[in-house]
């Protein structure tokens, strides 16, 4: 029982990180039809921004801020204006291919210009353990949960309780109508890219202490982001959050109770199963195409 609680809690923690990645991914898809195949690398790279900043002498908290700023610039602005905007003219398929190439590019950049070795990454939480219900719960997990949930709550408030957020939602649901209503659609879309950059930077800070910062992190993280987004329902932000948590817990439990050599397999099977039997995910609506 104690192990179960431990697994669930740490599963919720990683799940929260998956949720952040999946939400950013879903937002990009909803507002601008951007399928960002490089999302995993977007979560891998900020850790290296932070490590480099620290290497150059910045204290951890400052390095994090620098990392977020660089993410906003590169993964937000530059990504949108240099890659997405020119591509979208050609259609969704060239954009998908470009982001696939981008993911390879980012991975190779880190491998060649930083290191191919796994780098340790400092944790936000002091490494003490709490004892509750006979289980050992690391503050690491709790901190991750707290920060991630905090980010999700902040995002929720932004999207649902502010004028800006409602404008963004309107843009996501019906860009033409939003434009007619006077909403600056292009700026709203830019904001989603910036939000995605921040979410990825936060996710990176949270996950790197656990997995270490490695240039190959992008692949499993990317798959986790896509899985979570699809399980929850491709076009729903709430679904992405739910999908992330479910994925995190199931992944953890399956690794412990089922084979550990097939650790990565369980989520993959879930994905294939979801696509086979409920492609709109748990919360998604079935979408249609108009002429």
């Amino acid at each position, binding site marked *: 029982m104690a192990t179960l609680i431990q697994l669930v809690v740490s599963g919720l923690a990683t799940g929260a990180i998956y949720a952040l990645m999946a939400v950013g991914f879903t937002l990009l898809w909803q507002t601008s039809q951007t399928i960002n195949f490089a999302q995993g690398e977007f979560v891998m790279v900020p850790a290296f921004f932070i490590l480099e900043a620290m290497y150059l002498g910045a204290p951890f908290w400052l390095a994090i801020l620098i990392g977020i700023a660089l993410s906003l610039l590169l993964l937000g602005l530059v990504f949108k204006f240099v*890659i997405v905007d020119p591509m979208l003219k050609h259609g969704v*398929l060239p954009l998908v291919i470009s982001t696939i190439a*981008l993911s390879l590019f980012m991975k190779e950049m880190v491998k060649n210009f930083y290191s191919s070795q796994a780098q340790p990454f400092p944790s936000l939480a002091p490494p003490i353990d709490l004892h509750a219900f006979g289980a050992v719960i690391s503050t690491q997990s709790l901190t991750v949960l707290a920060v991630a949930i905090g980010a999700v709550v902040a995002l929720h408030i932004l999207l649902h309780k502010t004028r800006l957020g409602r404008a963004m939602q309107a843009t996501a649901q019906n860009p033409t109508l939003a434009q007619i209503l006077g909403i600056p659609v292009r700026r709203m879309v830019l904001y989603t890219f910036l939000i995605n950059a921040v979410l990825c930077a936060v996710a990176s800070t949270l996950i790197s202490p656990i997995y270490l910062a490695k240039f190959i992190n992008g692949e499993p993280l990317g798959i986790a982001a896509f899985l979570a987004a699809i399980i929850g329902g491709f076009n729903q932000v709430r679904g992405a959050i739910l999908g992330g948590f479910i994925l995190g817990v199931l992944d953890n439990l399956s690794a412990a109770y089922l084979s550990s050599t097939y650790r990565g397999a369980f989520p*993959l099977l879930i994905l294939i199963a979801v696509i086979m039997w409920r492609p709109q995910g748990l919360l998604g609506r079935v979408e249609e195409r108009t002429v």
Partner: protein
Amino acid sequence: MNRLGAIIVGAAALFVLALPLFLKPYGIYLGSMWAVLSIAAMGLNLTLGYAGQVSLAQGAFVGIGAYTTALLMHAGVPYPIAFVAAGLVCFSVGWVLGYPALRVQHHYLAFVTLAFTALVFLVMRNEEWLTGGTYGLSGIPRPVLFGWSTNGAVSFYYFSLGVLIALAAGTWWMLRSPWGRAFVALRENPIRALSLGLDTRRYTLMAFAIGSSIGGLSGAVYAPLVQYIEPLSFALALSLNLLLMVIVGGSGYFFGPFVGALVAVLLPEWLRVIQSYYLLLYAVLVMVMMAFCPDGILGLLHRALKTMIFKRNPPQPALQPERTSR
């Protein structure tokens, strides 16, 4: 295919056939590798270039084909049967994978194939009793066909070339049939195609399944070429590489995969000095291409030639003049 195209292809074919005359064994080996990659890329071109679907599993299908062939040959099955088996297995798996994924309108196939590739890698790595695990399978023999041994570099080159030509001919014939017309329609205007009774889902699925089976056949030639296979060769990197090959060569053009495979084989050789940067440059190349010429190298050539050989049609009447007998 117009006259200029035929001349170019003819010249290239002669060059390819005469290759062993002026290359050392390593160069001939690269030639065989080019043939293998061309086959796999040709299959992917069907899925991507003709049916417009992103598949990130072509590398996995090459792997499934390779392992199927190697295991059957180790069990004493004659090569031709192993070859066909590799194709059939991959066709079936492709069908089963694609059937649900293509019912949805987003690029779900991309994600399914991504997950599938990761899954296949895990199976290859873990099931030691079957695949040899991380140690792989070694000692894969070069086939002996009707008394002719393909053991030498030159003879295996002609063997792989023969398979490539046969499969290319088959694909060409398929694209000449009403299916080819359907694929063009599917790619250009799927909504219009649907409204004309064209079952876009069925055609897309067939393109994916056939494309995947051709990937498997590529693996069936790859296994005896390298004679030792292991899971890492067929991980996501190969699928990405094949995808980039098709794009760079020109997706949707029949000879695009051949050009792309050539680039993929030559680039690491040319960039041997900066070996580790070759993938980086490849990725940059693709991103630049997508921005400026998404139709790849052949697309670029096509447009260049069109502007050079532009012929003005004499002004046509809008409608044929009425026949007086009506």
